[in-house]
């Protein structure tokens, strides 16, 4: 029967799964992503869920979504607007409708459109009946009924049956997009291996969904997205938080010293702690502390004693760690601080993405307290930057900030698995020589020696009080204080010699330079690619190193007539660039807890060129 369906080949598709926060949408989305990745598509995902774990069913604020963009071409964003929405109930439809592409396909669970759910979603009339969805391709599927029918005969409660309907929906999408069931069937088997009845129920629901597509004529066309032509190599799908964890383990192996993580659970950073707690056979020690402060304090203690020390958090936790970061600055101990940014201030938007902690990382401490700051640009880049943060911390005996954000942390994309031998060594030389030892003597990098407890003859005291140059004893001498303040600053600035220059992408000779940092990389890159295809000349740079800036920053910024900086804050990096380089920067700010759509950036650029919106 399948042969009767037309198969249309598409370059790329964006799907959003949406339902109650208990409907398993995150699971459904990530299963589809894994299957697409295994098939060889390029992909990028955007989980979007409420802070409440199980908000009341059917409500607008309880809607959880997972968007994924898969393609036969190289892509860099999770897609601006979904081509397909799978809505498990009226609330999911209502919340997501405004984001869809004109003419998008909407697959709804028609069984969920009952008076109670319609009321919860604040619908006065049933949108499936009142023609308000005209212009969309609405596919009504009795998802709940079909799922129960498929599970007939299994000794399951109504509630359990209802809980498997996400697999039915997933099966249907696999059919629609011509994807195999096997990866998910295998996953279910692994996950529910010991609970035979759930294993069977979920597998049946998935299969039933697939054949529902095959055996009914609700869709007239199937779609096929060919594998992408990625660079040759082995790939796996990776999220930003997983990548950070792997980056740290790798740095620990390459430095030849144990990794110590002191951390306190916080959204959206907790997965790094969870991931690392699996890696005990790498000697990784994860200490789930009593609070954020103890998280960093234990890491500082571990660093003093010679471990590769790391602490992970998000904005509110970072605020609590401020004083201890100052201590790490003063004691000049290596430490990596990961801030997976979320919407702020205060508790803010815990599950939504933002990049508004930059100034906190730069300046959020008492005194002159310079700390290197680097930022990851994509989920897989989180691996490289976590590794890099460790390298800088150890080489320069300093705390280092690694900024990530919710969107990178939870989003995933294919990661080209690096060859272990190609990762550089991170030399660690604990000081051993008694004769030449001085606590605050400095090497060519202006770093002080790392002499760890247990080393005979090097007993010494460090702490938060100002230290005498070279000897490291407590010193209140005014000139020494100024000297040491300048020394700590000079040490961080010196890192400039050891980081890559900014690279101009796109049209180097353009008038307009679009500068981004951190998680705006994908949207900016896609926007510029689209506009260049249309003949516009645009240059692009992306900041991964913010303190210090790359050496050629001034030279590049001064070459362009206009500099546009899209940021998901009120212009934090713009402020730094203006202050440091006295350049004009056109700010483009969005603070809505979500990434830029590339079309938003395209429109902004077009308006700078004096044109009309493209989308």
């Amino acid at each position: 029967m399948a042969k009767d369906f037309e198969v249309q080949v598409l370059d790329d598709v964006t799907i959003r799964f949406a339902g109650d926060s208990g409907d398993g949408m995150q699971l459904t989305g990530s299963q589809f992503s894994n299957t697409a990745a295994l098939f060889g598509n390029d992909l990028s995902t955007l989980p979007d869920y409420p802070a409440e774990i199980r908000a009341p069913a059917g409500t607008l604020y309880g809607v959880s979504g997972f968007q994924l963009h898969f393609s036969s071409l190289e892509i860099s964003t999770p897609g601006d607007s979904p081509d397909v929405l799978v809505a498990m109930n009226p609330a999911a439809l209502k919340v997501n409708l405004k984001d869809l592409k004109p003419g998008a396909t909407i697959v709804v669970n028609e069984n969920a459109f009952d008076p109670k759910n319609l009321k919860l979603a604040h619908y006065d009339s049933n949108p499936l009946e009142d023609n308000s969805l005209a212009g969309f391709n609405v596919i009504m599927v009795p998802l709940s009924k079909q799922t129960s029918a498929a599970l007939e005969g299994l000794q399951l409660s109504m509630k359990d049956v209802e809980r498997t309907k996400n697999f039915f929906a997933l099966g249907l999408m696999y059919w629609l997009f011509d994807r195999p069931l096997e990866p998910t069937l295998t996953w279910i088997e692994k996950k529910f291996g010991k609970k035979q009845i759930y294993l069977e129920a979920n597998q049946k629901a998935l299969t039933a969904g697939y054949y529902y597509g095959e055996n009914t004529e609700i869709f007239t066309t199937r779609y096929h997205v060919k594998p992408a032509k990625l660079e040759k190599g082995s790939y796996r799908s990776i999220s930003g938080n997983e990548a950070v964890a792997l980056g740290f383990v790798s740095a620990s192996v390459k430095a030849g010293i144990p990794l110590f993580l002191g951390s306190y659970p916080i959204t959206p950073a907790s997965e790094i702690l969870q991931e690392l707690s699996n890696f005990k056979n790498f000697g990784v020690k994860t200490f789930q502390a009593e609070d954020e402060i103890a998280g960093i304090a234990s890491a500082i203690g571990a660093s003093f004693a010679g471990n590769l020390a790391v602490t992970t958090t998000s904005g509110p936790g970072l605020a609590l760690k401020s004083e201890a970061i100052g201590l790490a600055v003063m004691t000049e101990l290596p430490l990596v601080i990961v801030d997976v940014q979320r919407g702020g201030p205060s508790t803010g938007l815990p599950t939504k993405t933002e990049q508004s902690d930059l100034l906190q990382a730069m300046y959020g401490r008492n005194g002159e307290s310079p700390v290197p700051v680097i930022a990851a640009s994509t989920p897989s880049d989180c691996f490289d930057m976590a590794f890099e943060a460790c390298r800088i911390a150890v080489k320069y005996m300093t705390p280092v900030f690694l900024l990530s954000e919710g969107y990178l942390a939870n989003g995933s994309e294919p990661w080209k698995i690096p060859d272990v031998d190609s990762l550089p060594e991170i030399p660690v030389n604990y000081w051993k020589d008694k004769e030449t030892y001085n606590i605050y003597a400095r090497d060519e990098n202006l770093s002080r020696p790392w002499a760890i407890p247990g080393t005979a003859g090097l007993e010494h005291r460090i702490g938060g009080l100002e230290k005498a140059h070279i000897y490291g004893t407590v010193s209140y001498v005014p000139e020494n204080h100024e000297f040491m303040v300048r020394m700590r600053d000079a040490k961080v600035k010196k890192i400039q010699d050891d980081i890559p220059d900014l690279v101009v992408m796109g049209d180097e000779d353009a008038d307009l330079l679009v500068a981004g940092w951190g998680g705006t990389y994908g949207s900016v890159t896609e926007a510029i690619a689209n506009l260049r295809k249309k003949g516009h000349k645009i240059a692009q740079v992306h900041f991964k190193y913010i303190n210090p800036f790359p050496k050629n920053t001034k030279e590049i910024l001064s070459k362009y007539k206009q500099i546009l900086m899209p940021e998901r804050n009120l212009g934090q990096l713009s402020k730094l660039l203006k202050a440091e380089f006295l350049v004009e920067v056109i700010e483009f700010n969005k603070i809505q807890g979500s990434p830029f759509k590339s079309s938003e950036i395209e429109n902004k650029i077009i308006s700078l060129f004096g044109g009309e919106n493209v989308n």
Partner: protein
Amino acid sequence: MSTNNVMENVKLTAKDFATNQDVRWCPGCGDYSILAQVQRVSPELGIPKEKFVWVSGIGCSSRFPYYMNTYGFHSIHGRAPAIATGVKLANPDLSVWVAAGDGDLLSIGGNHFIHACRRNIDMKVILFNNRIYGLTKGQYSPTSEKGKKTKSSPYGSIDFPFLPVNMAVASGATFVARSMDRDPKHLQAMMLRAAAHHGLAFIEVYQNCNIFNDGAYEPLTDKETKADNVVVLEHGKPLIYGKNNDKGIRMDGMNPIVVDLSKGEYSVNDLWIHDEFDENPGRSFVLAHFSDLKDFPTPVGVFRQIQKSTYDGDLFAQLDEVTKLKGKGDLAKLFRSGNTWEVA
């Protein structure tokens, strides 16, 4: 897993543990005595100097590490137990000591203190309890008595104080003792006991601040009044005290009663026999509360010592166990865990 490396042939003296730094406490401060006792006891422990790490927070007593010629970390207010935890977990071979004042350990650092006790990290925590904020010049502390007039409580403090021994016992500390700066021998004995304990050892030291809270413990340290106000706890011995050893404590259910042994009504055989190793913490709480009760002596000595596994021991045991189970970590394998695919 590991205890401190004991070296048979280390022959250090108290002088080896002194630094060349001028000690900057006020003349007459009780901290001098604590430092002297620690320096006297340290060579006895058979631990090489380089394996000691002293960690402190902020406050007068937190200058302690600067005066110990070992590894030392003068950190930030209240965080010493957390930093010390990191030191111990990084290298369990080290002998880790915390020096902290009452404001540092029980107020701003209270959370770290109770959690270090709960986890039973193998480290020693010495509380310098002078019941006042000294370095900030004389405000009431979390151990100041209610009603105390200080610079920040001119009409008397309306805070109830903590009983540090109770906090430690309630939080799961496995060794809990109390001593006094003015009783060097007893203090040394407690230090030795704490050092020998495997797990979190807590010593509350009553310490006189002769500038802002002078005489806070005088009834307990003055030759004339000491015997009537202090009961020395010794394992297996009755709770007996007084100038003529004529007073004792007996238990009536869970209620302690002071009895007079001179009248013939009660004898030594009626008294509470102290059991340091009692698994049940109940009596430790009763003992700690003596200082709240009218006409009761203040106990000094070891309140409680029990054996439990330590966090650091369990941590390294788990690392070993998982390594045995999974094999030593292999990065290339780890990168490829989960689903991978090839692009040719």
